[in-house]
């Protein structure tokens, strides 16, 4: 029988699962580097968090009789990205809690994929950061000799108990904490290549940049938000640096902490970002500005997570003022002249 369809009768090649699949591909090198640096603890933490996300998604699908939504791969992305923002020795059970919260409170609550107002991975992290502030600020240095044979002790903490024998967290202080609390600067080369301590996936800015560039070039991800964040960061921290060079340099700002990971993989989560070009520029600027304010004047060494979440919350307001200028909007004057 003849089929009746509505135009257009052609379809672009990109599909949602395909985009998501490629995001996972782009994350893999970062995961591999992280495992290289932090050893089996990293591998197991990533597995546990991702599994927790996927199982939570499946559980809620089951509870609400929804059709299977695992095949869009977003739960896996959430899991991987969430894991990449956690410190290497983070107790596994807390990782599982983070995954559960990310999917349940960050996603299912709002109706699932596409409707979440906040970046689920970051919401999961924000929750565990508030719930277990000590564990999430205990950093383990990378490159330890026995990392492939032994777990970081705190990883294996028994569920619902506190990690007991934390490694002296000082040896693993992040570049940002060192900068903020000790006024010690980490060499730029370490920051760029990733030989510093920090969350699983945030250490190597260069690698993150390359993986993000792959997504942008293949058209799986927009370029405005990352660019806006990077440019705004350079500008704002540049101004501070020029005023008083005890403030960290723009390069340090850019390459330390989670800024790169946030700019390329988390602020770009399409669902929780604005859709309009102008909105994206504002969004990026807001993230950069808030990150720098928290880093320089706040109580915490790092601010990118809160900055992105705050920007997520502001998206409706941003979009209210940043709708695109429709075609033919100003031309009315011209026609007047023509009369």
């Amino acid at each position, binding site marked *: 029988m003849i*089929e009746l369809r509505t135009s257009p009768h052609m*379809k*672009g090649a*990109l599909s949602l699962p395909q985009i998501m699949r490629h995001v996972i591909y782009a994350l893999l090198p970062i995961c591999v580097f992280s495992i290289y640096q932090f050893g089996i603890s990293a591998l197991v933490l990533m597995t546990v968090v991702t599994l927790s996300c996927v199982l939570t998604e499946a559980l809620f699908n089951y509870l609400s009789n929804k059709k299977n939504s695992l095949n869009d791969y977003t739960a896996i992305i959430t899991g991987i990205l969430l894991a990449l923002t956690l410190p290497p020795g983070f107790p596994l059970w807390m990782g599982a809690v983070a995954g559960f919260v990310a999917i349940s409170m960050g996603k299912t609550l709002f109706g699932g994929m596409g409707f979440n107002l906040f970046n689920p991975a970051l919401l999961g992290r924000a929750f565990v950061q508030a719930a277990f502030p000590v564990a999430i600020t205990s950093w383990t240095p990378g490159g330890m000799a026995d990392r492939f044979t032994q777990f970081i002790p705190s990883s294996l903490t028994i569920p619902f108990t506190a990690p007991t024998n934390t490694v002296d967290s000082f040896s693993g202080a992040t570049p940002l904490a060192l900068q903020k609390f000790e006024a010690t600067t980490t060499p730029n080369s370490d920051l760029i290549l990733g030989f510093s301590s920090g969350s699983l996936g945030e250490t190597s800015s260069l690698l993150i940049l390359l993986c993000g560039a792959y997504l942008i070039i293949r058209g799986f991800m927009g370029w405005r938000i990352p660019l806006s964040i990077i440019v705004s960061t350079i500008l704002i921290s540049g101004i501070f640096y020029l005023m008083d060079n005890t403030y960290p340099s723009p390069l340090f700002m850019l390459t330390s902490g989670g800024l790169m990971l946030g700019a390329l993989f988390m602020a770009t989560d399409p669902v929780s970002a604005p859709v309009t070009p102008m909105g994206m520029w504002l969004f990026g600027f807001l993230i950069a500005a808030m990150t720098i304010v928290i880093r320089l004047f706040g109580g915490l060494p790092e601010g990118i997570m809160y900055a992105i979440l705050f920007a997520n919350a502001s998206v409706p307001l941003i979009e209210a003022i940043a709708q*695109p200028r429709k075609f033919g909007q100003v031309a009315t004057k011209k026609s007047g002249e023509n009369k």
Partner: protein
Amino acid sequence: MNILNLFKNKTFSHGIHLPDKKEHTREQSIRRLHFAPELIVPLSQHFGAPAKAVVSPGQEVVRGQVIAEADGFMSVPIHAPASGVVKEIELYPTAKGPKTEAIIIKTWPGASQRAASFEPVNIASLSHEQLIQAVQDTGMVGLGGAGFPTHVKLSVPPEYSIDTLVVNGCECEPYLTTDHRLMLEKTAELLQGTSMLMNALGAKQAIIGIEDNKMDAFNAIKSHISGFEHIQVKAVQTHYPQGSEKLLIKVLLGREVPSGGFPYQVGVVVQNIATITQLGELLPSNQGLIERVVTVTGTGVNKPGNYLVPLGTPIRFLLDHVGFSGNANHLILGGPMMGSTVASLDVPITKPVSGLLVFNEQSVEKVTDEIYPCIKCARCVDACPMHLNPSILGQLASKRQYEPMMETFNLMDCFECGCCSYVCPSNIPLVQYFRIAKSVLREQPREEA
């Protein structure tokens, strides 16, 4: 957005790049299709009031004879596409859906087709009003797709003056090659029609805009153009929907037609290649529009090509002629981006139809893929040539919040080009949503009144 665009021909911002798929018919010169045993001539083939039939069942008609006359200014007459006898005037299905009145003509066998004789007119001697009347008498409507009566377009409100006639040779939709062939084969008529219309409009110049995937047509016109001082051809980048008049004007002249307004407001009239070529042929000889070139292509036909089809030919006949492979089940009148599917093979070819695409099972792209929620990826926002926000429009439409769509998000500026649906990775049928919304919104004032 692409940096490479800097080195290419000019284009507008946003829009999309489509595979052009024109290779099957590009090289096929126009062939004449013979007459179907029965022609179905709907009285409404154009934008505006339907024509009024002036023949009655049983009456014999001669090819080219007026069989329905214009019902007011916003209407055009209809001419008999073939000699024969009027069988009936009854409701008949059309591509749009609702049945409309159509004159059914039983044609005489091909050999005895005889044309009504016409006296040539001297265009130059006509006054402006007479010229408009003459254009209306040809029954000419926009052949580019909208079917807007050409003479109405030519009667520009007196407060505006036209300086430029833009000839739309973009043919930006994939698969279609009618305009391309016409430019190659009827270059002289095209240029003649252009200068005629320039005179009619009092335009100082005319620009023929051609997408740069048709450089042979560009060169052909270039080589004929010497006699016509004020006509220029310009190549524009192949970029969908370059052929939309607002965007073409923007690219060629840098003028932006105001939202909700018409090209004449910025001193421009846009006509399609086919319209002008036909007019160039018909007007001097005082004839009516009775046939048009249609691209028939797609995976479902054996002999794709460009056919000169008498208006009113049922699709079934056309398909039989070009040989259509059995399981073709997807027929589109027009291009793949904006054309509409037909529900029945009895639907006739009418004036605005520029193509018939026939596909067999699922060979058209997988449109029925699973629909995901909008992920706000902004691809549609970057694609929309009208700079709307299809993402939010789509979300509002899915919640049936039509008023804000119109009031806050300019729904009415959407010309349904389909770019947004094309790029949406979530497969959201955005354009369909917008059509529903527009149809609801259009009904509303009527209800309140």
